[in-house]
């Protein structure tokens, strides 16, 4: 919870150099300390320990706020807090002077809290709550520039798609909890056999996949991610490349030991992953906006991750963990650099950017390092290891190995083109004039990209030359947590000239070739792009438009604004439901043993009925008031007859006062006018008589059921002994149920003050006129 709380304490406004320093440096202290904290846990987790903790949250439902930190959680936690630190510093520079920077940080830290909660949760209900919180904070962040209609529409689209998936996930989690008999992850992890043999296994898997695929932008739900680029670039770098879109991957990885290793799981993941991977890569290199290029390439990477989890072999899981880290590093760096270019030149269109390497040398270095890692070009970069592992996983896949290898090869070729578009095209050649005169970005804008890109080099160094470092066992525990079997990790960038080496080389050469001939190819492919007209984007728009039509129609139908019709609907529905239950459950059994009728009682009853008729048919307001008074006094007489003196006195006094109030108010209201048609009156009279008859039958039916109150004997027994009062009604009011009475007199007080205010306001209005 700490980040969300801390976000409210914005740094104070200093006067000196502190004042000019971007507040990101201060805010970043929080995620930085979290990063250090998580880094401190590596030791324990790498040794195979699972750190858990639990606090009761809704104990009656077995829902706890529990934490479960193993290798997988810790990899994610480190990425979230580490990249979060850099993004927060970056945002301080990117949005420098923005009037709503404080709000931005609140959203960002809210997201960070939610994302950390998601990956560290040990309880699936808590996990869901955090899952939805990430969707919500993503909505706020995409729509941060809320004055732009595009940003609002994109935010809504992302929320609808990920939120809809979230609902599916909730259903899946609830089913899983029911089948597995616990909300706790640690228990569920031991229940995999029970769950996989349960008839509900298939629905659970489908619901989980829906949740994960929407969140991680898998085909056909990928459309929200490119549109989410309407968000400020720090958000794109953080949520939509490094962290939130990986929540779906995390979900699949986390539940792989429970749900995985079945044909349905492997087939859906592999197929969806492969399609998404290819589609993303194919669309990426055709874009001209730097951020959209990166967004589609992110979709491709997410597809690759899903594919690897679907293959599910030890090597594939290992490849997934490594590629996850690698991708977060280089994609985060590239996004931040793209934002820096946008910030310093005023455009993100690669057709307008040339020769920036002279004016933005540091950004150039960062982008080049990140792009080399992305292309997997040189064994010097951790990206090369990732690429190598993916090829290895595809080659050794249990089925369709060659098909997968081919897809990966094609995807990687496109990825090389994307790397070229990002790193070569804007930076080389002659400097072109840009909307803003280009110059190097400030420290806060290049620090993040440079550090992340540099980390790609550093990790290779650690893996290659310090094999005893913590990194290898740490990655092994992460992979083990996913695969649910011991995975050994021995990573090396260079492993001699073998099939994988040749594949990598082929990728690189094909990529370079494609990069040179990309314009020709684009022209060649342009007819195929007409297909996008019937793509998921169009389906989404149609669905939304259809929903609008349905909503408008049903609002017109139901919200017509005629009060009598509303009331008629309510009355008929209630009467229908009561009548149906009454007749089907009890029939017309109204009993026979009734107490005798005495003359004075029946007189009062007849008077009440006559007065009711008079009140209804009277055309005079005074006659109606008098009739109402008669009913009230009649009732108080009935109360006297049947042992309720308190009621009788109260009713009598209230009736007197009501008549006075009626007399005082009705004078200001118009005479009764005849507004409805005779047909309308007949219809209402029929409805009213039906309801009245129904209530009579209901009363008589209820009276045939013997009374079984446990309260009445309790009150009678304890009235004197406990409450020292002989009037049981009064004792109930002021002692046994005194809290209710306190509530009641409060309501009365509120009503009186409301009336007083209404009348005083009226008086003032009159005086003003």
């Amino acid at each position, binding site marked *: 919870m700490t980040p969300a709380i801390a976000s409210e304490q914005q740094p104070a406004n200093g006067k000196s150099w502190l004042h000019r320093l971007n507040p990101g440096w201060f805010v970043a202290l929080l995620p930085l300390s979290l990063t250090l904290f998580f880094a401190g846990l590596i030791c324990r987790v790498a040794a195979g320990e699972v750190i858990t903790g639990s606090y009761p949250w809704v104990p009656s439902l077995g829902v706890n706020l529990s934490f479960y930190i193993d290798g997988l959680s810790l990899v994610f936690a480190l990425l979230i807090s580490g990249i979060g630190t850099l993004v927060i510093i970056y945002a301080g520079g990117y949005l420098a002077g923005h009037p709503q920077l404080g709000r931005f940080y609140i959203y960002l830290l809210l997201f960070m809290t939610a994302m950390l909660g998601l990956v560290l949760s040990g309880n699936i209900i808590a996990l869901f709550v955090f899952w939805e919180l990430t969707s919500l904070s993503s909505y706020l962040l995409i729509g941060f520039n809320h004055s732009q209609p595009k940003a609002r529409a994109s935010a809504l689209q992302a929320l609808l798609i990920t939120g809809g998936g979230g609902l599916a996930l909730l259903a899946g989690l609830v089913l899983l909890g029911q089948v597995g008999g616990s909300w706790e992850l640690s228990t569920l992890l031991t229940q995999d056999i029970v769950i996989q043999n349960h008839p509900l296994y298939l629905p659970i898997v489908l619901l989980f996949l829906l949740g994960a695929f929407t969140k991680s932008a898998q085909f056909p739900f990928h459309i929200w991610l490119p549109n989410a680029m309407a968000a400020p670039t720090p958000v794109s770098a953080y949520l939509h490349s490094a962290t939130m879109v990986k929540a779906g991957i995390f979900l699949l990885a986390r539940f792989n030991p429970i749900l995985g290793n079945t044909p349905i799981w492997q087939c859906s993941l592999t197929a969806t992953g492969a399609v998404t991977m290819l589609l993303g890569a194919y669309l990426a290199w055709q874009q001209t906006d730097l951020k959209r290029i990166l967004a589609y390439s992110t979709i491709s990477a997410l597809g690759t991750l899903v594919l690897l989890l679907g293959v599910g072999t030890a090597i594939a899981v290992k490849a997934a963990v490594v590629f996850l880290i690698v991708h977060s590093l280089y994609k985060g760096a590239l996004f931040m650099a793209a934002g820096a270019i946008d910030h310093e030149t005023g455009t993100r269109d690669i057709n307008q950017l040339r020769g920036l390497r002279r004016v933005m040398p540091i950004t150039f270095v960062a982008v080049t390092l990140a792009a080399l890692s992305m292309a997997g070009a040189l064994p010097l970069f951790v990206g090369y290891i990732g690429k190598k592992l993916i090829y290895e996983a595809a080659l050794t896949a249990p089925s369709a190995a060659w098909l997968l290898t081919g897809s990966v090869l094609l995807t990687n070729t496109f990825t090389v083109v994307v790397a070229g578009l990002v790193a070569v095209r804007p930076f080389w050649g002659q400097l072109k004039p840009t909307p803003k005169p280009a110059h190097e970005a400030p420290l806060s804008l290049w620090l993040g990209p440079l550090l992340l890109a540099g980390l790609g080099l550093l990790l290779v160094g650690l893996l290659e030359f310090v094999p005893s470092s913590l990194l290898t066992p740490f990655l092994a525990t992460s992979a083990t947590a996913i695969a649910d079997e011991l995975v050994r990790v021995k990573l090396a960038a260079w492993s001699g000239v073998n099939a994988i080496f040749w594949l990598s080389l082929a990728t690189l050469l094909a990529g370079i070739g494609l990069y040179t001939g990309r314009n020709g190819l684009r022209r060649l492919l342009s007819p195929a792009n007409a297909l996008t007209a019937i793509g998921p984007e169009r389906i989404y728009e149609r669905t939304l438009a259809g929903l609008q039509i349905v909503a408008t129609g049903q609002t017109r139908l139901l919200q017509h604004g005629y009060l009598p019709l509303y009331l008629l609907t309510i009355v008929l529905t209630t009467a229908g439901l009561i009548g149906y239950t009454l007749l089907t459950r009890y029939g017309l059994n109204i009993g026979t043993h009734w107490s005798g009728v005495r003359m004075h009682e029946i007189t009062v009853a007849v008077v009440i009925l006559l007065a009711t008729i008079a009140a209804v048919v009277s055309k005079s307001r005074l006659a109606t008031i008098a009739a109402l008074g008669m009913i009230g006094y009649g009732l108080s007489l009935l109360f006297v007859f049947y042992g309720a003196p308190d009621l009788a006195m109260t009713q009598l006094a209230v009736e007197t006062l009501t008549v006075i109030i009626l007399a005082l108010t009705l004078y200001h209201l118009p005479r009764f006018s005849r507004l409805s048609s005779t047909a309308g009156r007949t219809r209402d009279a029929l409805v009213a008589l039906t309801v009245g008859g129904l209530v009579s*039958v209901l009363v008589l039916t209820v009276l045939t059921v013997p009374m079984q109150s446990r309260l009445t004997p309790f009150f*009678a027994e304890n009235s004197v002994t406990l409450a020292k009062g002989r009037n049981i009604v009064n004792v109930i009011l002021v002692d046994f149920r005194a809290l209710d009475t306190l509530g009641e007199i409060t309501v009365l007080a509120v009503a009186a003050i409301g009336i007083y205010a209404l009348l005083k306001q009226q008086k003032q209005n009159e005086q003003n006129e």
Partner: protein
Amino acid sequence: MEIVLALVIGGLFAGGVYMLLRRNLVKLLVGLILLGHGANLLIFLMGRLIPGRPPLVPVDATHPVGLFADPLPQALVLTAIVIGFGLQAFALVLARRLYQSAHTDDLDQLRTTET
């Protein structure tokens, strides 16, 4: 007597519902009052009819002897009567204010929030 009272309750409900469905603002309020009376009597009757024996404990006893009227529905109805009084007063004054600003008592004319 229960049958008679059931008919009285039914009559009050019928009258209440009929008035509730009128387009006239004041008639709507009369309907509310009638329904309130009907509901009070209904709750009271649910405690069964015990003529002439209020739920009072004799001076020298610790709990009531013999048959006695059920005190629980009585307490409920007592509360309902007083709350109903507050509600009716509030509704009446509100109707009066509404009429003064909207200049109509026809509910079909009162379909928008603007006056």
